[in-house]
């Protein structure tokens, strides 16, 4: 396990380790500023691993590609939109605009398979405590905020975040091993209406939709 001063360094280091596919290294998990590397002791000497791993630089800002950006369409009809707006002292329309203007970064994936913790919530939208008690059922695709973060529920689950809306896209699916997001990726939300929601419903994040457009759009 290694701790970094910066979350983007942690995420980039984990990505660098995963991309090398070192023999015996099963996974590198970035979670905020910490990275845990899991290895198979039958395939690699765990005592020799830290030195080899630490020799891998955290390629922050290097490399030809940079972080992936996921564009996530959202129908902002969430149950908590009005209440959250009141609590934040802004208009619902401004809440949606600010949420869509922000560039979020995936700080960690956890809680549920494929559940992204998104940093970069605009200051005006921060400070909402989690709901007490949490909802017992939050629908799949719900986009929500709490504290200084946003999130997307990949599957129906209990949850205490404030629901702003829903994405029609599948953002993770255990049955098919579909997990497009990883710590360090960027996420932008795009407002859509009910018709577009219905047209995109059930498509996977990044998959071409029926009109031939690509999601991400543009």
């Amino acid at each position, binding site marked *: 396990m290694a701790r970094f001063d910066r979350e983007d360094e942690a995420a980039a280091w984990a990505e660098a380790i995963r991309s090398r596919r070192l023999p015996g290294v099963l996974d590198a998990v970035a*979670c905020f500023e910490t990275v*845990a590397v899991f290895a198979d002791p039958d395939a690699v000497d765990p005592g020799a691993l830290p030195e080899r791993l630490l020799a891998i630089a955290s390629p922050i800002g290097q490399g030809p590609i940079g972080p992936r950006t996921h564009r996530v369409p959202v129908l902002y009809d969430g149950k908590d939109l009005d209440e959250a707006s009141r609590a934040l002292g802004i208009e619902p329309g401004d809440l949606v605009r600010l949420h869509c203007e922000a560039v979020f970064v995936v700080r960690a994936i956890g809680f549920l398979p494929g559940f992204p913790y998104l940093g970069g919530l605009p200051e005006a939208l921060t400070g909402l405590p989690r709901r007490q008690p949490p909802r017992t059922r939050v629908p799949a695709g719900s986009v929500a905020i709490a504290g200084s973060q946003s999130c997307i529920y990949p599957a129906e689950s209990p949850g205490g975040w404030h629901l702003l809306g829903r994405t029609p896209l599948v953002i993770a699916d255990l049955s098919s091993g579909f997990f497009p997001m990883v710590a360090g990726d960027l996420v932008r939300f795009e407002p859509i209406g009910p018709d577009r929601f219905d047209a995109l419903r059930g498509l996977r994040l990044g998959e071409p939709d029926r009109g031939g457009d690509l999601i991400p759009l543009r």
Partner: protein
Amino acid sequence: MTERDELATSGLTVLHPGAWTTVQDLGRLGLRSRGVPPGGAFDSQSHELANALAGNPPGAATLELVLLGGKFRADGPLAVALAGAPMPARVLSGSGSRTVLPPIGFGLLPGDVLELGGLPSGARTYLAVRGGWRTPIVSGSRSSERPLREGERIPALPSSSPIRRPRPCLLAIPGQEGLPIRIIEGPDAELLVDRDWHQNPFVVSSESDRMGLRLDGPPIQVRTPPDRPSIPVLPGGIQVSGGRPILLGVAAGTMGGYPLVAVVASADLPRLAQARPRDVLRFAPISLAEARRLDRESRRARRGILLRLEAAVGGAGTLADPERRPPGSGPSAEGEPSDRNRPCRGREDG
């Protein structure tokens, strides 16, 4: 008949699902960075043993039976095996009933009912079938956290085998009951106010499952900084929440916010899986180097057992086989270890 046709009709039907029976293999690897816990058999050692007795590789799916086994009907001839905690088991067939004692491999005929009782000690027993239980593979694994339901059918290909019970020497793992659980310092050990917390015994609470074991004991004080970000966690991790330790299980989430003060040595994870509510656990701190040594030793010992069993199951004769018992050896429950005191040749100590 194709394999698919056979799987549609052959297997086990759940007459009573037991307390918490799930299908397990060695779990999902490589998806932790996507938030997917590894899952898999909690006591992977007993899971491997059951598989070896059924003639399977370690990764075949078994049923993980917790505390109370349940009742299952064979819908075809099945070569099955039980290993792990000593669950009382009976096979009810048209001609009567017979007792089987784990660890054992034995055969079920179509219509036979396998009745698995409550565990007198330990928490987990594994039921393997030759070829493995053939439930759907999800992201590379059949491991599921959903307990079996009454009426459900668990597919398996038809197979048959004589009753085979390994000589105890084939399974020799140094006795560890009552020994403390060995732990190493966790990444948050410096947050402990009381560094000697592990000198107290703790009692396994009833709020324990594959996600984790909650322990009761003297409160453990930790300094928890506000807004502390979560960190990656792992099976065997020991978190402190509300002054109580939580021992994380194989189905625990991949990250957690409670201080991760210690980690159970991986060699002792199978024993953790056998801890049941009201058991008393003691802990002994060891160094990382010692934990790695224990891990190497235990993996070597496990490999040795599997190789010996493989040889025995593959080449007949090495396993005690009641059907080959000479006449006059007396009445005996099938699988009773009548050869327990016989010397074992070729015993290894690794």
